[in-house]
């Protein structure tokens, strides 16, 4: 199916474990993003990537690692999960044509850290 897909849809893990959330898009969009959604905070940018092998920090990058070896994939890794990282994580992509275009979002990953 075309679009942007995230996996897993739900994940429960324990404090201290490493967790990787996957994101795959089929549009060949240049930009990809990871946001977390928390009650009262809306969506906050964790990391973004302008192209393969180019990544940059967003508003809340601590405790997260990203990579982008291929244009279509943008995994997010929690190196040592903490309870404060319990959240809903959204991956998004965008094709820029000289301005800020709309974002296309995945369905989200609900992560619980016990």
């Amino acid at each position, binding site marked *: 199916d075309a679009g942007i897909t995230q996996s897993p849809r739900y994940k429960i893990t324990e404090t201290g474990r490493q967790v990787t959330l996957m994101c795959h898009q089929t549009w060949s969009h240049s*930009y990809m993003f990871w*946001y977390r959604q928390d009650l*009262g905070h809306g969506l906050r940018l964790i990391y973004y990537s302008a192209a393969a092998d180019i990544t940059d920090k967003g508003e809340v990058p601590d405790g997260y690692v990203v990579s982008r070896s291929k244009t279509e994939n943008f995994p997010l890794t929690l190196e040592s999960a903490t309870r404060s990282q319990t959240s809903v994580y959204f991956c998004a992509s965008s094709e820029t044509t000289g301005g800020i*275009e709309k974002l296309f979002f995945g369905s989200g990953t609900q992560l619980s850290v016990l």
Partner: protein
Amino acid sequence: AQKVTQAQTEISVVEKEDVTLDCVYETRDTTYYLFWYKQPPSGELVFLIRRNSFDEQNEISGRYSWNFQKSTSSFNFTITASQVVDSAVYFCALSEDYNFNKFYFGSGTKLNVKP
């Protein structure tokens, strides 16, 4: 200070009522973009509209309309004759100056439309 403020946390209306979702933004840039996204119960955010700072014309799309006023730094969203399918969380967002690292979402307004 928050870049995008959506003061209404939750609104409940009865079907066919009109409802306005408020959005106030803060920026010093002269070039910026404003967005509205809808997040239905299924969870995925869906793009509704983008406006740039140079275009203050109000926009209407079916039952949806947007009122952009630079003088009050507001970009309000009105749904006319609301329907149950409009029930969702709505996010307003601001992008400053072509920079994705300066893309800010408000905290969202949850709209409940009751039959």
